[in-house]
Structures are given as C-alpha cells and as structure tokens.
C-alpha cells in the first residue's frame, strides 16, 4: 500500500453519511463483515449528529452566506457545518481568536444563519 495523497479531500459528515448509506444499500456491504460493521457503526454515529437533517442545498447556501464574513477558514466553515453553532461560546471554540476577528454582531449573525439553515441542530 502506497500513500499518494494523504488528504486528497475533506468531507463533511453529511457527505460521509450519504456515501455510507449507498454502501449499505449495495450488495458489496454483505460480502465483507468488516465493511458491514464499520458502515453500520459509522451511520449510527452520524445519525445522532446534526448532519442527519441536512441537505446539500442547505449546506451550499450556508457556505455562500458565510462568505460575507470573509475571514473564516475552510476548516472553521467545515466545523460549523458538522456542528452548527447555537451559542456564542460555540463560535469562540470554532473560530480561533474570534474576539479579534469577529464583532459581537457578526457572532450573532453567524448563529442566526446556522439556526436558519440547520434548525434541528443541537
């Protein structure tokens, strides 16, 4: 086994859930026990996270609206999708040096956006 590109692409939890549901429904998961186990357990985990109610459209719109805060990094946006912030303390955790990079109003705006697109989160 040769590693060609360790991090070719980063996935949101939603994308993983969709991919694994396809695997579970296809015949290939029955052929190997390990695959059946890991897909089942990972789906179980993901179905207990906010990604279970997300749609591709919601995620895309959320990302577009977040662009106006310009300074957010990709991994910060990814975290906000996987675990949508509902409290200012969540933003502090996700965004490094959030006090310097975001104003209080911006923090509230991000939380509003996250609640608007992912109402069932938390």
């Amino acid at each position, binding site marked *: 086994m040769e590693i060609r590109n360790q991090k070719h692409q980063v996935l949101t939890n939603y994308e*993983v859930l969709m991919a694994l549901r396809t695997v579970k429904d296809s015949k290939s998961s029955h052929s*190997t026990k390990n*695959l059946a186990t890991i*897909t089942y357990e990972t789906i179980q985990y993901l179905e207990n996270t906010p990604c279970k109610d997300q749609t591709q459209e919601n995620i895309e719109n959320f990302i577009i609206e977040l662009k106006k805060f310009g300074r957010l990094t990709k991994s910060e946006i990814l975290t906000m999708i996987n675990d949508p912030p509902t*409290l200012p303390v969540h933003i502090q955790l996700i965004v490094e040096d959030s006090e310097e990079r975001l104003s209080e109003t911006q923090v509230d705006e991000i939380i509003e956006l996250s609640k608007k697109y992912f109402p069932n989160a938390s």
Partner: protein
Amino acid sequence: MFIITELKSTIKVDPSQFNKSLAEVSKNELNKKLANKVLHNVGLCISFREVVSFGDSCILPVDGSSHTDVIFRYIVFRPEISSLITGKIKSCTRDGIFVTLGFFDDIFIPKDELQHPSRFDEVENAWVWEYPLEDGAKHDLFMDVGETIKFRVIDEEFVESEPTGPPETNSESTSTNTNTDNMKPPYKIFGAINESGLGLDSWWTQNSGEVEDEEDDEEES
C-alpha cells in the same frame, strides 16, 4: 473529521473472478483489505470511494492470477489536530476519561486536560468538575458514563504493530516495553475539554443565562 485519502495498491485477481469487471473486483478486494482497519499514519479506513486509474495488468509465471496496480480513493476517519468532536463517555478512570464514537473508541482525555478544578469520585467512578460559585461554594458537575461530551483533538498516536522478538532476550527494560506495546491500539486520539463550551452540552446550555453576565438583554427578533 473524515477525509479522502488517495492510495495505490496491487490487486490480484484470481482466474475465477475473470468474469467480473476489474473495477468491481478491486472494490471488493480493497474493502476486504482495508474496511474497519487502521492504516499507519493514515487513519481508520471506512469505505472504498472510487478508482482513479488502473495500471497495466500482468500475469506472473507462478500462477494464473492477474496483477494490476490500482490508484484509488478511500474514505478515512482522521480528525485534524485542534478540531472538535462530539462523542460519548465510555468509562472514567483515575487517569482520565475514555470516549467512544461507536465506530472508534480509542479516544482518551487525560486528567490534566479536564476543566479545572476537577476531582475523581471513587464512589461514582466518575470525574466531577467542581464549578466554583460566587459565595465560595462549589457546584458538582458529574461526567457520567454514557453522557455526550464535546472535546478538542490535541494529539494523535499511531503505533505500528511489529512482530515481537523472542521473549526475555534483551535487558529488563525492553522486555517490559514489549508487553505494554502489545496492548496498544494502532491509532489513538487524545482530547481536551479544558475550554469554555467543551465537555457536556448541558453545562453550557442551561447555565448560559445565569452564569454569564450577559451584556445585552434578551433580544426580540
């Protein structure tokens, strides 16, 4: 938390499988080989994603199987250092807290990375955050088994499983090492909950109104 890793491997196709397409055989073989296994310095392999390209197939003199180099992509669990994950408390020991995600449970929060001050309750077998109250008293916040816990990834450790040599050949120090190494999981994540917002969700949702001095009053929107 999840990434796609691009890998290269040689697929051996037995003549009995020649009626199937190479793509299908590779997918099955790679799932057999990698699914639910930890690949050193890569992470926990979850599921085959796609083939990028096939090399030329060749047949070796010794058997009738065809051998093909294949470049492919695999879904891998490999949370980034400093990312946030939510899991469940699996068990507590005096050294810290073990957390499980269901599909992965080699996650450990050392006692030095808990909220401060915390103590270990021997009776309940749980860690307790002694939240200080204004009048000098403290409020005990228990971290019980099964509770949902949010933590930050602070470190990771890959252990390559190596064949252990004949026992007791070297000095004492190495022989004790091999014993413990045998027990080590191939991939382990270390977490921390010593920041505001980490730990149990209920600590922050219930208290946010009373504990924090909220500057702005409730906004109507």
